[in-house]
């Protein structure tokens, strides 16, 4: 599936459509612009505040601090467990040097189950022996990344940010009002990275615009040992109108329990109904289990209209970097945080120069879009085609039975790289997909005749 990108590359990359690649300070022909970019800071380093201490914020803080910038990391609650799938791609372990003892489970088998209960094994034949999907607990990962950012030199401020003052000129600092232990304090910084998640306050203050969110609802269930053995290293995905109208429902194994949940964009008020639907579908496998926690969280569906304004940049969930189709966000959050931090280090020459909006856009936004827009677009197309109706979902499960499709999917998911496939196999895969879609559509039309 990922290999189809080779056949339809972006003819006109996003980056070249509206920005001219000239000098750092972009001048429009009509009026003179006065920017502070390039101004040398005498006697001090650039001060940057990262608001939000999850994977995005911690990676940004680490990149900034290692680059020599005075970094402040704000995190209001350092110990809550975030409601999250907890799956990361394999490449994240290498790229972010995550120690292996943090991983709770190695998922080596996946099952995807269609509305008519056709179950396809994903990975038993197509995953190589050293490959797996690591599952970990968010609180463990987050605190590891945060402590690493601190040891790189970032200052952790465990307080809640309440207000942001936007400066009037390009030289004056941003004032952050925060409250810690019921006492209000302020902090002046030159630039801000907003990494505070789906309900981002920073986004509200810079008027970045709204986005549609999906809601993910899950229950953590502790199973009896013999049932837990089935989910030892197996994750399941269920599709169907009874479990979600436009997404999938899942059973993911965690450290000592399973998380059973579902998500939806268009029918948020019926989420409990869909949760009941998924629990009915896995009834025999979770019989005797006890619900230990119920949680829900919004997941952004697309990027915010504005991701950089002034000297404030949004990263991670706050910017809306969650892929469609799989709902993956941890890797992209961490990667965008790191890229933004590195962009600021580059633009300010290690903290010596003041930066401006154009620097952020050129070094961070353009690089990010160039690298990942096609991935996001491709997954959006997959979601639209295959999650739309029961007919399409049956076709999806049939297509996933193909070993080549599985191999390509794992290559692009685990390594986040365009999978280099065999042209002939690609063609066969495309025809196979079309064939499956047509067959399932024909059966779907037959189904409409029946009034059971």
């Amino acid at each position, binding site marked *: 599936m990922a290999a189809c990108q080779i056949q339809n590359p972006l003819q006109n990359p996003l980056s070249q459509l509206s920005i001219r690649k000239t000098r750092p300070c972009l001048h429009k022909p009509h009026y003179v612009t006065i*920017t502070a970019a390039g101004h040398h800071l005498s006697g001090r380093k650039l001060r940057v505040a990262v608001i939000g201490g999850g994977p995005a914020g911690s990676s940004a803080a680490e990149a900034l601090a290692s680059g020599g910038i005075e970094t402040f990391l704000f995190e209001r609650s350092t110990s809550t467990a975030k409601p999250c799938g907890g799956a990361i791609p394999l490449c994240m372990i290498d790229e972010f040097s995550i120690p292996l003892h943090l991983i709770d489970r190695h998922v080596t088998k996946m099952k995807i189950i269609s509305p008519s209960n056709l179950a396809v094994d994903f990975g038993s034949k197509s995953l190589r022996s050293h490959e797996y999907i690591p599952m970990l607990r968010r609180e463990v990962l987050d605190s590891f990344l945060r402590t690493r950012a601190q040891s790189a030199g970032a200052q952790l401020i465990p307080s809640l940010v309440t207000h942001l003052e936007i400066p009037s000129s390009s030289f004056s600092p941003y004032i952050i009002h925060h409250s810690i232990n019921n006492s209000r304090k302020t902090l002046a910084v030159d630039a801000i990275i907003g990494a505070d998640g789906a309900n981002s306050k920073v986004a509200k203050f810079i008027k970045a615009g709204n986005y549609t969110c999906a809601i993910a609802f899950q229950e953590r269930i502790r199973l009896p040992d013999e049932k837990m053995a089935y989910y030892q290293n197996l994750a399941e995905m269920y599709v169907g109108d009874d479990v979600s109208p436009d997404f999938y429902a899942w059973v993911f194994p965690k450290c000592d329990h399973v998380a059973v949940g579902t998500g939806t964009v268009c029918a948020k008020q019926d989420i409990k109904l869909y949760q009941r639907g998924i629990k009915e579908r896995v009834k025999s496998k979770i019989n005797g289990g006890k619900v230990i926690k119920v949680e829900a969280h919004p997941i952004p569906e697309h990027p915010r209209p504005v991701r950089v*304004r*002034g000297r404030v940049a949004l990263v991670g969930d706050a910017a809306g970097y969650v892929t469609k189709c799989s709902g993956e966000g941890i890797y992209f959050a961490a990667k965008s945080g790191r890229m933004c931090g590195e962009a600021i280090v580059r633009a300010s020459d290690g903290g010596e120069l003041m930066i401006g909006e154009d620097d952020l856009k050129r070094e961070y936004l353009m690089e990010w879009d160039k690298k990942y827009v096609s991935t996001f677009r491709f997954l959006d197309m997959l979601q639209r085609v295959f999650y739309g109706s029961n007919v399409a979902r049956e076709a999806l499960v049939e297509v996933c039975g193909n070993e080549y499709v599985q191999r390509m999917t794992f290559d692009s998911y685990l390594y986040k790289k365009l999978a280099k496939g065999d042209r002939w196999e690609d063609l066969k895969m495309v025809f196979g997909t079309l064939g499956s879609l047509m067959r399932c559509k024909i059966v779907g039309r037959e189904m409409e005749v029946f009034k059971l």
Partner: protein
Amino acid sequence: MASISISASLQRACSSQHIRRKQKPIPKPTYSLGTKQVMNAVTLDMEAQKGYKTETKEEPASEMKKSKDPEERLKDEFETESSAPKFRDERWKNGTWDLNMFVRNGRMDWDSVIVAEARRRKFLEMHPEATTNEEPVKFRSSIIPWWAWLIRTYLPEAELLNGRAAMIGFFMAYIVDALTGLDVVGQTGNFICKTGLFVTVIGVVVLRKTQDFENLKKLADEATYYDKQWQASWKDENATSSSDRIGNT
């Protein structure tokens, strides 16, 4: 088949005045009201029964075989309130269709395989079943050969369109002859007539219904919507540049 047995059981139930067949509610926003649901179930099954009159004539044997099953299932349903009707078909064995049972007159009847699979999927759509590890579903529709699909769907529609095209062609030839004096042989030599023919053929193939045009437009809009959302950050630069740069940066 499932529907025959359900309707058979319902007839018995109606006659003996035990109307308490609980149907699993389909997950839609208006799902409450148990009694209403039962009424719906009754009417729906009556329709299904009528629809299957022809089928019952063809296979009286299977109905006899099913006579035991409905009773057992009826008892099951009364005992456990929450159990939904399970999909049952004598040709569905161990999670796949037994293809030997579809042989008719010594030849494989793929049409009935397609119909049976469609009914199974429809049934599961209305009454979703829990997955079990003991009886996994293994049937793949790719086992049905491509020509069976063509014969069922493509050929009838092609016949229809060809018929329509032939009728249009005949009357247009007559009208053009009356207007211009060119007979059929002369028309085939004329360039304007040939382009007219070409446009008509393409038009009939592409726009079979007026709905198709709207669907294509909607598809194009949807396909580019996500792209627009990503580009919004860049578009904004032009809009805010004047106020922001002088004021803020």
